[in-house]
């Protein structure tokens, strides 16, 4: 199956599965600034996934932010700074905590689950979860459709590529980009999972084939929104940066206070809201 038909099939599956979202207010996280909800919604499978949704109080519409899930069992709850400025949705994909009824992801293990076949690879479903979350957020009446941003790793790129409507795309990390090469750099997880898989006998070709469906460099050309790519090694990231129609690079300093503030300010500027540092000076 080629790249386009692979992803078209995911879209087709999602299109016939009603999301049937359920929102419940979370009083402990509701403040004078924003109302906080838990979200449960159906993705492909069908499978119920979980989200943290916060909507600013006052008259909308508001700028919005979708935070795609990181690699790991837990995602942080949206920070109060973001909750005060954006309609913000953070997703727990299938297998992560709070979305683990019926399937609890293993760490290590998730990155290579079903990787011998693109059709059974777990990230096919995870990508669908992100697309479903995007559809939900973009459909909220409180959201200003001209100011919808997405932030995360390759999943953010993939989602922005396949769901028009994101005006700003902040890419803070990448997992799948050149993963078959990146795995050689160290024995650190999660990329070490790929080495474990190869030692177990999976062919490098099979691995590369499946990973290629998820590599951000293949999705980037379809991203319409203004994009910021956080870059550690410019040479390593050059082909990804070039693949986006309109992207700028931010050279990571490894002074994460500085980096966090820059990344926040960039998105705030795109969204027309004030920049806020998480560190209270």
């Amino acid at each position: 199956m080629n790249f386009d038909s692979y992803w078209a099939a995911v879209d087709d599956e999602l299109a016939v599965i009603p999301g049937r979202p359920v929102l419940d207010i979370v009083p402990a996280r509701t403040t004078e600034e924003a109302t906080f909800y838990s979200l449960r919604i159906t993705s492909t499978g069908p499978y119920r996934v979980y989200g943290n949704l916060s909507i600013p109080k006052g008259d909308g519409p508001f700028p919005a932010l979708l935070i795609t899930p990181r690699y790991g069992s837990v995602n942080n709850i949206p920070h109060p700074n973001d909750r005060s400025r954006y309609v913000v949705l953070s997703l727990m994909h299938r297998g992560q905590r709070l979305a683990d009824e019926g399937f609890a992801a293993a760490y290590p293990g998730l990155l290579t689950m079903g990787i011998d076949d693109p059709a059974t690879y777990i990230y096919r479903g995870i990508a669908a979860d992100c697309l479903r979350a995007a559809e939900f957020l973009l459909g909220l009446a409180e959201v200003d459709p001209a100011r919808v941003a997405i932030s995360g790793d390759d999943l953010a790129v993939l989602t922005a590529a396949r769901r028009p409507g994101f005006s700003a795309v902040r890419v803070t990390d990448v997992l799948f980009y050149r993963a078959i090469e990146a795995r050689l750099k160290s024995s650190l997880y999660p990329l070490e999972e790929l080495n474990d898989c190869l030692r177990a006998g999976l062919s490098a070709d099979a691995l590369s084939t499946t990973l290629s469906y998820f590599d951000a460099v293949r999705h980037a050309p379809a991203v319409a929104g203004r994009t910021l790519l956080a870059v550690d090694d410019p040479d390593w990231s050059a082909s990804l940066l070039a693949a986006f129609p309109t992207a700028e690079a931010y050279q990571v300093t490894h002074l994460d206070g500085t980096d966090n503030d820059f990344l926040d300010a960039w998105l705030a500027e795109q969204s027309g809201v004030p920049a806020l540092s998480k560190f209270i000076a």
Partner: protein
Amino acid sequence: MRDPENATVEVELPDDFDDFWAAGLADCASYPLDPVLTEMPALSTDKVIVYDLRYTSYGGLRIAGWYTVPREGPAPYPALVTIPGYISEPTIPKEWSELGYAALAVAPRGKLRSNDVFNPGYPGLLTHNIVDPNTYGYRGFYLDVVRSVEVLLDRPDVDNLRIGLQGSSQGGGLGISTAALLPDVIRCVAAGAPYLCGIMTAPTLTRSYPYEEINEYLRIHPKDVDRVRESVAYYDGLNFAPKVQAPTFLYVGLEDDVCPPETGFALHRALACEKTLRTYPHCAHHAGLPDVMRIVEDFLAEHLTPGR
């Protein structure tokens, strides 16, 4: 303007602090450790052998970990317990064994591989039964790390005189508590961005998680503030710190929104052992990563002498 180095961070020391933890250790000792190691060939490499580890801890719960040893080099090895952060799962510590250590990455109760019985979730652990020190979620969690060191003491391939602790954030905080509870065993501690120090002060200095969980809890249980304060005093790193005897290396980001730098400085002041503090301007919770890891490696190597 904040002045983290000179800020006051106070925690009351409960009168029965030592008895409280002695009782916890006694409970652990009432159960056979019963460590079971299963070699994992599919996860092992030409340099490192990987084992799945299970052992019994506080309350009789079985706890998981990853244990790795070098394939080559002079055994018995120096050993390192790596302690996970709040939201992270312990990864297989191959990189430490590649440097010559026997390494144990512990998954205290509530982490995915140790949550059959106790599973407060994330968020949730920080405030699980927080009004009651005896049933607070962290009670077993702290002791699970102590118990993991006892696993190492039981290993013929580990040099009992060369055991250290390494972790950041929650891993840093529990490095301090574990070293305090095993002062005769632990030879050094590397603790980054230490969490669980100044537990009641930290939520007043930040809106970031996990400390924000305490603000949320008190938002709907405002009358519990005194009981929460009493309870977490038993778990506060500032109360453990004076009991640490091992040389300790601390590293702190001066713009850390997760574990406010005021609490890192307070920990440094409270430590009575040989200690080193490195501070990183413009750094947040990474506290100098990745560069600081070279210093951590040198510090651990100085005290644990891998390859000897």
